[in-house]
């Protein structure tokens, strides 16, 4: 018997998007496979690594722990939506490039979304707070020093400092 399909409509990075999917389709797979937005990465699929983090109505969530059908109607921001208005790198992305905050880049989409949301509420973190902000994201190659530096640099860029 074919699995029943559900129409799911989301606003993704400001654009209305939709697809008919089975109820068990994870939001992470919905974004990647059904919408072709492969920026969101999938590491562990049990909430631990943070690679799949997206913003749901502005708040960071694990897209691997949500069914697309559950969040029907919501606004989602992925790493593709973290670019600047002119289409270039957004401030958080720019900071990661400036500070060598990535090597293979697998974990990076989850860091970018997490840090984007964090800085909105905490625009001027210190070193310790920056470390805390990324406590739920794992990186297997870069080491966290450069990522912490990237968070601080992103805050600086967002405050308008060229530094």
């Amino acid at each position, binding site marked *: 018997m074919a699995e029943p399909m559900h129409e799911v409509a989301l606003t993704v990075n400001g654009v209305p998007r939709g697809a008919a999917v089975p109820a068990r389709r*994870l939001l992470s797979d919905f974004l990647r496979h059904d919408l072709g937005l492969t920026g969101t990465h999938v590491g562990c699929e049990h909430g631990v690594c943070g690679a799949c983090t997206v913003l749901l109505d502005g708040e960071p969530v694990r897209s691997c722990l949500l069914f697309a059908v559950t969040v029907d109607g919501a606004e989602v921001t992925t790493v593709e939506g973290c670019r600047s208005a002119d289409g270039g790198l957004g401030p958080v992305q720019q900071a990661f490039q400036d500070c060598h905050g990535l090597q293979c880049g697998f974990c990076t989409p989850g860091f970018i979304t997490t840090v984007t949301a964090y800085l909105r509420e905490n625009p001027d973190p210190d070193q310790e707070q920056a470390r805390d902000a990324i406590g739920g994201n794992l990186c297997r190659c870069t080491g966290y020093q450069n990522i912490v530096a990237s968070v601080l640099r992103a805050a600086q860029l967002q405050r308008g400092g060229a530094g």
Partner: protein
Amino acid sequence: MKPPPFVYHRPASVVAALATLAEAGEDGKVLAGGQSLVPLLNMRLTQPGHLVDINRIRELSYVDAGSDAVRVGALTRHAELARHPGVPALLREATGCVAHPAIRNRGTTVGSIVHADPAAELPAVLALLRGSVTLASAAARPGRARPDQEIVRRSVAAADFFLGPLTSAVRPDELAVEAVFPRPAPRSGTAWLELSRRKGDFALCGTGVLVTLDEDRRVTGATGAYTGVGPVPVLVELTEAVAGRPVDAVDWDRAGTLAAGAVAPEDDIHATAAYRRQLVRVLSARAGAAAARMAVADG
């Protein structure tokens, strides 16, 4: 891995959810925040035939911070509870220790309690404050014309709610609609402390202590609640180690020693039993002293 297929239900009201749960019986599961259930589905450790998604039941999203108790609806997320200005310190501190912000944005307080993980914070807090869970079910009795119109509620005290690891008193046809956290008595203080290997991990041991003083600032009662040292949240009466003494003269190490002797942790891959016992000793002493300071400030 990917979750197995299931029939998806998205009721818009408690009544509708209860009717669906009653029909699905043993084959049905409630989907709240999904932060415990979806990992289990992704790993195919559970395979329910029906999922009843309660995320559209807006009537279950509330924090009612009354003078006697704080009532938390089943759709209230960890992050919402922690942000609420009327929530007692113990609840806020312990909730802040649950996982990471991205998990707390989605996971629910009530879901965490129903899930009954012996390492989870909220079940221990509920036990320490002698709280309860309100369970609702459809009163479908033969011969009733509209069985879905009647809701039966029962309140289960924390002491009777946690039956074993990942096992609570909720029947398959029941929805937990509310958790009730009574406020501590006047001149009380509380503290929550825990140790985990990495921030946001489940703690090796979490410790909550509730201390109550009399008008002369003598300790009249002290209780510890512990995660990670038993199949359910463990409560230990610490009163005999500290009672009757002026609060400034209490040796909280005595409470730690008493607690360490009362718990029966087991070895697992995360820590030995002896190490967990040592955590109970140290965290009890520290949390007791912190709770006492708060009780002094309270009156």
